């Protein structure tokens, strides 16, 4: 009897273990099946580099270049804001802050990750957008910058906690060696710890980017969703994710609009797959290097 229970539990754990892989494969299969159907009627290049997104016109135009650039602008903006802030706060938490403050800061940053993105979007539309409109004297505050700022907040927890981990895993002997040679604390941080933790920092940045590229709700609410080719971060943009979210309801299953949205899904999948791959590469490199030393 016990043997049977053992066996069943073993199998349950096995299923849970391979479950995630099975589901990823199923999702990928479904995405490819629905998305690739578009390319029987639309040229791949016209899809990727077309500049007009008019999916419900007659005849429809499926050019996603404005959407790709929209996602790119928002992401770049978020990275420019979140990375320096993230490195700074990780350094402060890991190296400078006294013990009790460290705990408070760490839980504060974790709490930031717990705020639902729709709440951030709502705050953005009610306070950030009017604020940006007044400062930059814009026609409307619903711009790529508004999205970038909100997404920077969302990426911060990921970035800070991974960078902090990699700073903590820098061997103590480095720090002591540097200080013993007469370097100041800042020189030690700047010349020794940051370079030693660089793989982790790069991985953190990549994972932060992954978080930003995939984010939907907040950008849908505060970036204005105009499918123009953006030339400045102070213009409204339409991102890949927001397009899927906003239009999936309308698309009748089996129409070319529906297939086009799945094709956008493939593009997103490829982007986040590459980002994760690069992040993994840096994380592993960092681990190996530290092990060698």
């Amino acid at each position, binding site marked *: 009897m016990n043997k049977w229970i053992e*066996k069943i539990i073993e199998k349950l754990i096995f*299923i849970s273990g391979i479950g995630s892989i099975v589901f990823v494969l199923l999702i990928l299969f479904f995405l490819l099946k629905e998305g690739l159907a578009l390319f029987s009627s639309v040229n791949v290049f016209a899809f990727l580099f077309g500049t007009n997104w008019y999916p419900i*016109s007659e005849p429809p135009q499926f050019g996603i270049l404005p959407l790709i650039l929209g996602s790119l602008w928002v992401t770049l903006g978020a990275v420019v804001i979140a990375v320096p802030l993230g490195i700074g706060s990780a350094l402060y938490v890991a190296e400078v802050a006294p013990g009790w403050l460290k705990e408070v800061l760490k839980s504060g940053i974790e709490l930031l990750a717990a705020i639902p993105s729709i709440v951030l979007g709502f705050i953005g539309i009610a306070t950030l957008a009017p604020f940006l*409109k007044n400062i930059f004297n814009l026609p*409307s505050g619903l711009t790529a910058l508004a999205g970038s700022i909100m997404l920077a907040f969302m990426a911060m927890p990921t970035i800070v906690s991974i960078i902090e981990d990699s700073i903590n895993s820098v061997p103590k002997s480095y720090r002591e060696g540097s200080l013993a040679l007469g370097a100041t604390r800042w020189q030690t941080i700047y010349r020794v710890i940051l370079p030693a933790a660089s793989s982790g920092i790069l991985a953190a940045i990549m994972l932060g980017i992954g978080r930003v590229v995939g984010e939907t709700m907040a950008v849908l609410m505060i970036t204005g*969703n105009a499918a123009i080719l953006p030339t400045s971060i102070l213009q409204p943009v339409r991102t890949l994710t927001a397009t899927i979210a*906003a239009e999936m*309801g*309308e698309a*009748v299953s089996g129409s070319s609009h529906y297939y086009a949205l799945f094709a956008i899904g493939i593009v997103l999948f490829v982007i986040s797959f590459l980002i994760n791959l690069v992040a993994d590469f840096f994380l592993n490199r960092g681990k190996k290097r530290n092990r060698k030393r």
Partner: protein
Amino acid sequence: MNWHGKLLDLAVVALMVMLFFAAGCGRGNKAIQVKGSDTMVNLAEAWTEGYMEKYQANALAVTGGGSGAGFAALISGTTDIALASREMHQKEILLANKRRVFPKELQVASDGIVVVVHPSNQTERLTIKQLSDIFTGKITNWRALGGPDRKIVALSRERNSGTHVFFLESVVKLGQKKNPNEFAAEVLMMPSSQAIVEEVVSNPSAIGYIGLGYLNNRQKALAIAKDENGPYLVPNLRTVKEKRYPISRSLLFYTNGTPETRVQSFIDYVLSPAGQAVVKKMDFVPIK
């Protein structure tokens, strides 16, 4: 472990996976599903409340998502009633027929599309042509309409919205089917009527369109005319009911053929005086 054992393991795993999926398929007593137009969601919920109070019985589930989403659900058989703020397109009907779904249309209320601006905006009235020029990007400055030198921020609903499609067809394309006009790429696509309201309230250069039910005294509604000869009319219960206001539309129910009894009893309630009183209470326009 020999191959017998492995085979047994495989069988156990397969059985568990099947059980796992089978558990998800069982369904009990189904609620009547009502899905579609975001414009009509609040109205449908009010009907649902009134209906359930009166008959103490059938449960109804109301979901939004846009008229297109309602049609999509009707075609795929996941909803009993599709709420629609626009008529079904020929293409959608063909697709439905292909899946052995035969949509039946029924008008349940009327609505006027209100064009709103910031209360401080001096503009009082516009023609359909001027509106079309604003939303296609031909007029980009309030100066061209006699206002101050300020860029116009045009706000539209997203493409999943029946209001978007209705506005596109009857205003941007000037009501002509073959007209090639499109929303300019610069027009901001807002995810909900409430988002348009928020932006108009806080932005003196904004212009947007919403259903009559969303209008309040924090925005200014413009008077609209078919052409320069007028008459310029503001949307209200009377002008919309008499279809004199130029951007009025019907709010519709779509069912698959003749609905089953319990769905029909809900529809009967909607068309009854009690149901139409709810329409008025929700700031839409009753048909009777």
